């Protein structure tokens, strides 16, 4: 994952986007490990955002046209519901880019491998508009706004890099011999 690039449209949000906005509790009766409910969770991604924002999932569709979410500080605060990173992954989001994360959301994103939680050096939600095209380059650690042609620095993942590279906590634990390979 760390060697590739992610390119797509961005959806831009501000500070303190909480897990109730990412996936309202009414949808927590869905179990993410049941495949049809996983897809359903994706269709409800960001259903708790204020009504005046552009729809994250177009009406009648299950997936989002936005591959990248740009957030402000403390992205994913609140609940430990893993449904939050999972619904983003299920909707087709590949990465979230934010200057800081709430710890459980960040951890769940890494452990599940559902969505890449990328830390930006600066707060970028004023540097992008929803619908801009962006490219994340994990070799150069940059995100480029291809609409405005500006580039911004991303932080390298540090200590969690091996878990992200492995694709989650289970794959990492298998890699280091902590648990057995799957049959």
């Amino acid at each position, binding site marked *: 994952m760390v060697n590739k690039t992610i390119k797509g449209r961005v959806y831009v949000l501000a500070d*303190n986007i*909480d897990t*109730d*906005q990412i996936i*309202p*509790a*009414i949808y*927590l*009766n*869905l*179990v*993410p*490990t*049941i495949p049809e409910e996983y897809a359903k969770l994706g269709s409800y991604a960001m259903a*708790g955002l*204020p*009504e005046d924002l552009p729809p994250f999932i177009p009406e009648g569709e299950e997936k989002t046209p936005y591959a990248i979410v740009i957030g402000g*500080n*403390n992205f994913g*605060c*609140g*609940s*430990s*519901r*893993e*449904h939050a*990173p999972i619904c983003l992954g299920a909707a087709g989001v590949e990465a979230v880019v934010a200057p*800081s*994360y*709430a*710890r*459980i959301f960040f*951890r*769940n994103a890494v*452990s*599940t491998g559902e969505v890449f939680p990328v830390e930006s050096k600066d707060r970028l939600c004023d540097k992008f508009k929803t619908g801009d095209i962006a490219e994340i380059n994990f070799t150069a650690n940059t995100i480029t706004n291809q609409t405005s042609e500006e580039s911004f620095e991303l932080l390298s993942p540090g*200590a969690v890099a091996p*878990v992200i590279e492995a694709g*989650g*906590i*289970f794959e*990492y*634990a298998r890699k280091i011999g*902590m*648990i057995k390979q*799957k*049959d």
Partner: protein
Amino acid sequence: MGSTITEKILAKAAGVEKVSPGDNIWVDVDILLTHDVCGPGTIGVFKREFGDDAKVWDIEKLVIIPDHYIHTKDEKAHRNVDILRDFVKEQDLPYFYDPGTPSYKGVCHVALPEAGHVRPGEVIFGTDSHTCTHGALGAFSTGIGNTDAGFVLGTGKLLIKVPKTIRFVLDGELQPGVVAKDIILRIIGDIGVDGATYGALEFCGSAIDALDIEGRMTICNMAIEAGGKNGIIAADQKAIDYVKSRTDKPFTPLYSDDDATYEKTYRYDVSEFVPCIAEPHLPSNYAAAADRTEVKLDRAYIGSCTGGKTSDFIMAARILKGRKVTIDTFLVPATVEVAEALLNEQIEGVSLVQIFADAGCLDIAPPSCAACLGGPDDTFGRTHGNEVVISTTNRNFLGRMGSKTSKINLASPMTVAASAIAGHIADPRELM
């Protein structure tokens, strides 16, 4: 250099002499807690990764407490509890508190210590962000997701980063009418919803010593609302007596060294604290209740792991006794034990249940998380419109109690009760 309580517990659980903030360590888990909303997914992960015939690492260490979506007609909610029941049977699990049976308890964070599963010095993970509540008894306790919980189910271990510790020294004496909830709302107001991100919040000082166990739980419960990994209070004799009254299992409390290193220390004189609220839509939107009396209310709500314990209802009853509420007032005891206390506890010879009925509160709901997090459409107390609510719960995020257009103000049980009488936000000290 010495260590903090959190560092000592984690070092012990990792089998090493000492750990430092930022270290990534594998710890042995003493208790894994899950419930009906995250349990089925956790079981799904466990079976997907370890196989259909896999066995839980230690059946004595897994506690399953359904509490979120219990009193609802939602079919998937019932299906989810059935998934738990099947798993309990398959794995022969001893600690399952099944809805609709005499073993049912209610809100997991009030039920876990009630049932003696919280012990000082131990490591607790739970699939719920308010698992940080249990630091009130000197345990390291934090919330995790389904995937990490599925990993624990199979291995009994988890890879975690040692948090830096932020210390809050609270001295002085609270004024009458100012309680634990006011302390934590004030702290979150000061440091912000990300003021303690990835940190351990250690609370100490004479004001903490003076609090009862439930007050300490209220404070640790909301550590997550400042971004904290865990909240923790050293186990004093009061905490040790509480734990011993609930379990025979042995435990070893651990304590911070005098020369422990803290990331930061905040000092407060709590005698200056006042009854307060957190305004919509963040727990950090602090305001003194007395400064917001112009805010008209539609609804009051007393319940949840934060504000639905026995002592919370006693505080509310002290204000409500002999008075009438002027807005819909919803009461949801956290657990069956709390619901029984409402029948048995009295103030000047009148039971709490009678005081609430005489005050005109709505009929008391059966124990569960109820509208604290909105939930299914038919959840008791869930908002559906533009209601302005004052609540003893923990989060006032947009849409948290159901409707995206309702507005939630967080407050102590005393402030909620005083406001329910006034019909607007009110300072309870005027009624004491």
